[in-house]
């Protein structure tokens, strides 16, 4: 049989379509199964009460609060540091070999496994700085982990503002900082925000970095200060699904559902923000 290029094309396109479907289907499967099995667990009581009976009953309130604290702590640390560093690197740092090396290092740090950040956090915050396993140490660790994400996305957003905007502003005698403040930042803001939201969702969903820096296995009360340990949703899910036998399926899936909803809604916000930004972008 002679090869027919059009038949080959049909076969190839069909295979491509099948591959795409194979990738996409599990997403729907995961979301569906978690909602189906976890939805019945969700109640006001589940969300607002503390776990009881060795986590086999009760709610997940301390884990939700712990995750909230951690995200907040991460932001307080990484947000100003990351955004200002991006401004420093794009607007102030001289373009020399050292700067390029630093940028390269920061971009590549975004690809370093989260468990390595956990090690780093344990070594420096928990042990060396003697913070112990605490919300503070956990927030700092997560902060260091999301720092490259915030710097990289902010830097991209700043770089995408045309150079001519800066030149115009400077040529009007406007100072460098005012130029950045009024001619660069406003136009880079949506991009920076997108990066920050992605960083938050990463901090909320990660388990490995908090394993040894903050997470409490079972702590049926709320933390009192930043030096306390805390429960956190992702670690809680890990614990009740692998470490504690005989936890009701409903509670496991309910916890997974809450965690997934928090993280997915943050990502959805980032996606919407970014598409708005692309639509509005005029230069």
């Amino acid at each position, binding site marked *: 049989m002679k090869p027919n290029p059009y038949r080959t094309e049909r076969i190839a396109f069909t295979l491509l379509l099948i591959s795409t479907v194979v990738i996409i289907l599990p997403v729907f499967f995961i979301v569906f199964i978690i909602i189906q099995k976890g939805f019945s667990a969700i109640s006001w009581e589940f969300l607002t009460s503390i776990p009881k009976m060795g986590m086999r009953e009760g709610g997940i309130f301390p884990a939700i609060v712990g995750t909230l604290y951690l995200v907040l702590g991460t932001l307080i640390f990484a947000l100003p540091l990351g955004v200002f560093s991006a401004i420093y690197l794009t607007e102030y740092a001289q373009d020399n070999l050292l700067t390029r090396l630093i940028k390269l290092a920061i971009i590549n740090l975004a690809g370093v496994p989260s468990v390595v950040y956990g090690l780093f956090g344990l070594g420096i915050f928990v042990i060396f700085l003697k913070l112990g396993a605490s919300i503070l140490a956990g927030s700092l660790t997560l902060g260091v982990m999301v720092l490259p994400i915030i710097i990289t996305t902010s830097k991209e957003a700043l770089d995408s503002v045309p150079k001519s905007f800066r*030149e*115009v502003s400077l*040529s*009007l005698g*406007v100072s460098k900082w005012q130029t950045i403040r009024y001619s660069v930042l406003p136009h880079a803001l949506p991009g920076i925000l997108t990066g920050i939201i992605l960083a938050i969702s990463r901090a909320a969903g990660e388990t490995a970095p908090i394993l040894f820096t903050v997470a409490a296995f079972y702590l049926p009360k709320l933390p009192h200060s930043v030096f306390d340990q805390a429960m956190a949703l992702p670690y809680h899910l890990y614990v009740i699904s692998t470490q504690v036998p005989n936890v009701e399926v409903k509670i496991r899936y309910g916890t997974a559902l809450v965690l997934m909803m928090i993280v997915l809604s943050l990502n959805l916000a980032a996606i919407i923000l970014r598409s708005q930004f692309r639509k509005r972008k005029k230069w």
Partner: protein
Amino acid sequence: MVEKGNKLNARSLNIWFGTIYALKKITIDILENEILSIIGPANSGKSTFLRALNRLNDLNSDFHFEGNIFLDGKDIYRDISIGELRKKIGMVFALPVPLPLSVFENIAYGPRRHGIQDQGRLSEIVERTLTAAYLWDEVKDRLHTSAIKLSGGQQQRLCLARTLAVEPDIILYDEPCSSLDPISTAKIEEAMLRFKHKYTQILVTNNTKQAARVSDRTAFFLMGELVELDLTENMFTCPARKETNDYLSGRFG
């Protein structure tokens, strides 16, 4: 033309970008209230010279220079702050660069940053500068629409008005009409001629006819050197140097 005081002086100005020797020993005196055209082929250093005057070359990390530039007798690197210098020396760029703001806010951008917040004063500045740039009648009903929506020619006049709004003494034009149609070009040139009593103007252009139309004196740059500087009518009727003649008659460039 009437001899007035020197406004700007470049004294044996040498400029390098990395290893590229971009401007070679340029010495020019620019007179108050004149229009000086700078012509020359691409990469002859005309824009570099212009951007040296308001220190915009400083943005290039591999830029370095020797020599001096004086504004009203003061060294622009030692005696004047960079903000003060750029306030006094405005610039219109080759491509119109409206900021993604309204027409009004584009003009008000400079004055606001220099501390004028009063809405009444800002409105007055916007009207006065837009009128001077021959744009007021076209945009007075849509001051609060985005400047991006204006046509290319309108955008360039907006940029001119924006430059005027910070009340400079000197205006630099870097090939301001290279992207414009003939009618818009005519309006810009008309504005330039009207400004003569008030501003010193330096025009870098690829269009030798434009230089002939508007300028009092013309300088010819070639490969980073100032070949010739003379009254425009002399330059275009009997240039002293062969290179100038070759360029003007279209043999290269």
